């Protein structure tokens, strides 16, 4: 009997949902254009020598002094908005992925350690995490970035600190369930060293729910970063993410120059919705109760 590998089966099932497949294509496409921004973008939006003030606040379709069409118009400094969005995507994705991975690492380590140790340590770690989950992530991130100040690393720290708790909660739940299973008892009865049991046996079997949380949390890290940047406590002006582009155009919203804010906003929405759709599909696939 021919058996497809687990990954191949997973992919075949994933492909069946057209919506999820389209969302995945969008995510991959956006990551692709973000990576290739310097080569795709018609203009380097942060090289001041390229900018001409006479091109400022032009509507989409305007052919500027650079000799190319500004597909999505220009902003208050005469920057090509399409190029600015590509560069902004780059920064937003970077922040989301780095902060998400950091939160993943810290949270999963804490959650699994708590589940493995049990007893008082488990109670202590998990109560601290519960306490933190009671605060809205945005409030926590705001306070932390206000304390740490502006900067890329400070923001990553703030985002990770606001989000690791979700990973810890999920990892703890999954690991506590796995810990009682026979294969873990079998590993302890060999006996294998505790560290090996935790990382080689328990962790790999906790991954499916964690991957689901990770996709959703990367999307929410991007949204959180955009919010903070919009509020002006996020990234410095030298690192303009999508959130800052939205903030920059905000003052022109009422004067009919909608494109400066709207298009970065649309890009942000498409990115977050697409990541969430992919995450939803993975969640449905790893949920044994929804399996056919």
């Amino acid at each position, binding site marked *: 009997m021919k058996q497809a590998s687990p990954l191949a089966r997973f992919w075949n099932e994933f492909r069946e949902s057209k919506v999820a497949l389209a969302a995945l294509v969008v995510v991959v496409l956006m990551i692709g254009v973000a990576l290739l921004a310097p080569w795709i973008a018609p203009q380097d939006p942060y090289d001041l020598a390229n900018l001409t003030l006479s091109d400022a606040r032009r509507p989409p379709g305007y052919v500027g002094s650079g000799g190319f069409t500004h597909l999505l118009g220009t902003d208050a400094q005469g920057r090509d908005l399409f190029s600015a969005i590509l560069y902004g995507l780059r920064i937003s994705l970077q922040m989301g992925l780095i902060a998400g991975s950091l939160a993943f690492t810290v949270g999963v380590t804490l959650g699994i350690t708590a589940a493995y140790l049990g*007893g008082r340590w488990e*109670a202590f770690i998990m109560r601290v995490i519960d306490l933190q989950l009671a605060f809205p992530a945005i409030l926590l991130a705001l306070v932390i970035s206000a304390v740490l100040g502006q900067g890329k690393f400070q923001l990553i720290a703030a985002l990770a600190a606001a989000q690791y708790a979700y990973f810890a909660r999920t990892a703890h739940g999954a690991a506590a369930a796995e810990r009682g299973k*026979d294969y873990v*008892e*079998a590993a302890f*009865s*060999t*006996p294998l060293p505790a560290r090996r049991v935790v990382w080689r046996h328990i962790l790999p079997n906790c991954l499916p729910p964690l991957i689901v949380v990770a996709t959703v949390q990367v999307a929410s890290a991007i949204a959180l970063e955009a919010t903070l940047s919009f509020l002006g406590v996020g990234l410095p002006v030298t690192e303009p993410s999508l959130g800052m582009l939205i903030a920059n155009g905000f003052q022109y919203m009422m004067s009919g120059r909608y494109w400066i804010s709207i298009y970065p906003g649309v890009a942000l929405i498409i990115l977050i919705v697409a990541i969430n759709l992919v995450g939803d599909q993975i969640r449905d696939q790893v949920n044994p109760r929804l399996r056919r």
Partner: protein
Amino acid sequence: MSGSAEAVPLLEVRDLATHFHTRAGVVKAVDGVSFSLRRGEVMGLVGESGSGKSITGFSIIGLIDPPGKIESGSIRLEGRELIGLPSRELRAIRGKVISMVFQDPLMTLNPVLTIGAQILLALEAHEKVSAEAGRKRAIAALAQVRIPEPEAKVDFYPHQFSGGMRQRVAIAIALLHRPKLIICDEPTTALDVSIQAEILAEMKELVAELGMALIWISHDLATVASITSRVCVMRHGKIVETGPVLDVLTRPQHPYTQSLLDSLPSRAKPGTFLARGGGVPDASPPARRSGASPSRGSKADASYFVIQDVSKLFQTPPGILRLLGQKLGLSQPSRGVQAVDSVSLTVPRGEALGLVGESGSGKSTLGRMAAGIYAPNSGTVRLEGEPVMGGGARPHKNTTRIQTIFQDPFASLNPRMSIGDSIAEGPIAHRIVSRAGAAEYVRQWLAAVGLDPTFASRYPHQFSGGQRQRVAIARALAMQPDVVVCDEPVASLDVSIQAQIINLLMRLRTELNLTLIFISHDLSVVRHLCDRVAIMYRGKIVEEGPAGQIYDNPRHEYTRRLLAAVPVLPTAPPA
């Protein structure tokens, strides 16, 4: 009854085919099954897992859901075709004319409704009753299935009943409308033997008393033999043999029926390989590393493996609030469950000790303490004088000389590790083999347990239950243990697979001179494999002795009850 009604059988199944259209292709679960059932007849449907016996039952009662579909054939109830009947009319039949009892009453009873409320719902499905009359009927129904104090029990929730009592409630609900046919799908499989014996006896009386027909679906030939008059043996969705139960079981015509009977340890001489069981590979296990096992003492050494006064109390760890409450004297620590209560056992080298008990007797907990998986609350486990558990704040297992084989091969292998890695992991970690030699070592072990050595890179989900149990055995033995604790290693396997695994264990035991602690609820398997038997009851060992003595001349009252409860296969009458 008129003559014409007598001519039409109660149930007539013709060429029934029920298929499942799955991702992997069409599964012909039931593939051309025909039988008929007279009024008041008790028929057994026997087969191993996947034979289609349950799906036949579900097809009759009309509970086949997509991706399953009844493809063809006919099911006639008193001459009326059931296939293709609109669901409204099927509902009028289901529960009233045909009813069903399932394996696990915990799954079929609603946990948030009292038994009385559930019986009332079942009543209202087919007739108009007042709450008061319904309650009276519910009490009568419970009394009918011998539930003591039915007036009080009617207001209980399912979790307040034991497994046997819950199954009685499920039977009471199935009997409410005096059905003409009742289908029981493995109704006693999840129950202990003594409870099973009670249910079997009661069911037999009820069927005779109410004059209904019964289809008893089971994998267990002995229970089927004790309740039914006629039996159909199923395999691969087809009935391979049918006839009066005594004829089929004593003079089987079909080779499959014969091989099923030959697989039963109760029909073989203890300690012999089971006929037709097969499963004994030609390859020998790899040689032990030299000097691994200090062989002090002789075979009769009485202090080889000693379990002394071990106790285990399971307590839920108190949460922070409870701890605080205890400190302030506001709450009491939870009492917990005393699973094992100061048990002592001595196992000489090379002996196979059977540990027998019903569920909740503490046999698995004792086995896990012997294997060094649980630390006892008090007492010690020593192998040749050396304690199995290292002390300290976090007690841990000190030795690789004791290994464990678990009940469920689906749960005891890490699903995300190839079986080769699973087998090699321990020996590499403990330097029994070098990393470079591991692949060859794994191949030798796979061959020794009768698996294709090239399977090493496969994952557990690619194997059947019996194959997985072979992998689990290879994993335990690759650690080159002296003592192996087997916790119900064949309980979740079909009889033919069970016979293979028993044969494999017997062969490896003699070849490697292993000391076995064999935990089981199945008295016939233990008798077949073990030299000595200890009977556990409520955390204590009530009787211990050579296997022959325990089985032929039990002293303790509990042992006697246990042995009497085991259903026995009919033997061939003298020709």
